[in-house]
């Protein structure tokens, strides 16, 4: 069964304190792995798509990496505005289904 597990559930950092969020997945043929950011009361905001092991993508203070079993979202020198819930999702090649399998997210708080 396709599954996505994110850790930690919650993370509190001081401004400037770099860290990483983990997304472990099992899927029958990975079509893509997606990272989103969700602020309270809003819909998820797309950040990155990763397609194959070894791929990396960067945006400002965020860098996403992918292996055959997991993905990391590295946050370098975070600022308070990076506080949000970060969601990971995977899409498999199984069938003709475009459904994403979602993790429960990591709630990140960055203190000034």
């Amino acid at each position: 069964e396709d599954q996505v597990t994110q850790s930690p559930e919650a993370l509190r950092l001081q401004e400037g304190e770099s860290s990483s969020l983990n997304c472990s997945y099992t899927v029958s043929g990975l079509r893509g792995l997606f990272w989103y950011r969700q602020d309270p009361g809003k819909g998820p905001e797309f950040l990155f798509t990763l397609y194959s092991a070894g791929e990396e993508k960067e945006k400002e203070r965020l860098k996403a990496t992918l292996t055959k079993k997991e993905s990391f979202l590295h946050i370098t020198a975070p600022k308070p505005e990076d506080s949000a819930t970060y969601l990971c999702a995977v899409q498999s090649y199984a069938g003709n289904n475009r459904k994403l399998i979602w993790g429960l997210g990591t709630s990140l708080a960055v203190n000034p």
Partner: protein
Amino acid sequence: GAGVSQSPSNKVTEKGKDVELRCDPISGHTALYWYRQSLGQGLEFLIYFQGNSAPDKSGLPSDRFSAERTGGSVSTLTIQRTQQEDSAVYLCASSPGTGGYEQFFGPGTRLTVL
């Protein structure tokens, strides 16, 4: 360009009433998804449209839930005889459908059933 829009942003209804939630996807996006998100819970898939057809309705919780999409654009999610457990944020997302599988979300409709 315009993103995904949803209306209403908030809906308060009484148990047993029917509600309709609307989603306007990004222009040109052929794929459209409905999700439900309860407090402290993950995103729960409800239904997926490709064009006007729904290849996957597996996430609809009961036959009180239905959805349609017309003109390959606007979609409506209808919940009949609402129950308190239907209270949640209902999110809509659209995707290009070809060449890109990223889903772009609307702001959601917060449904409260009293």
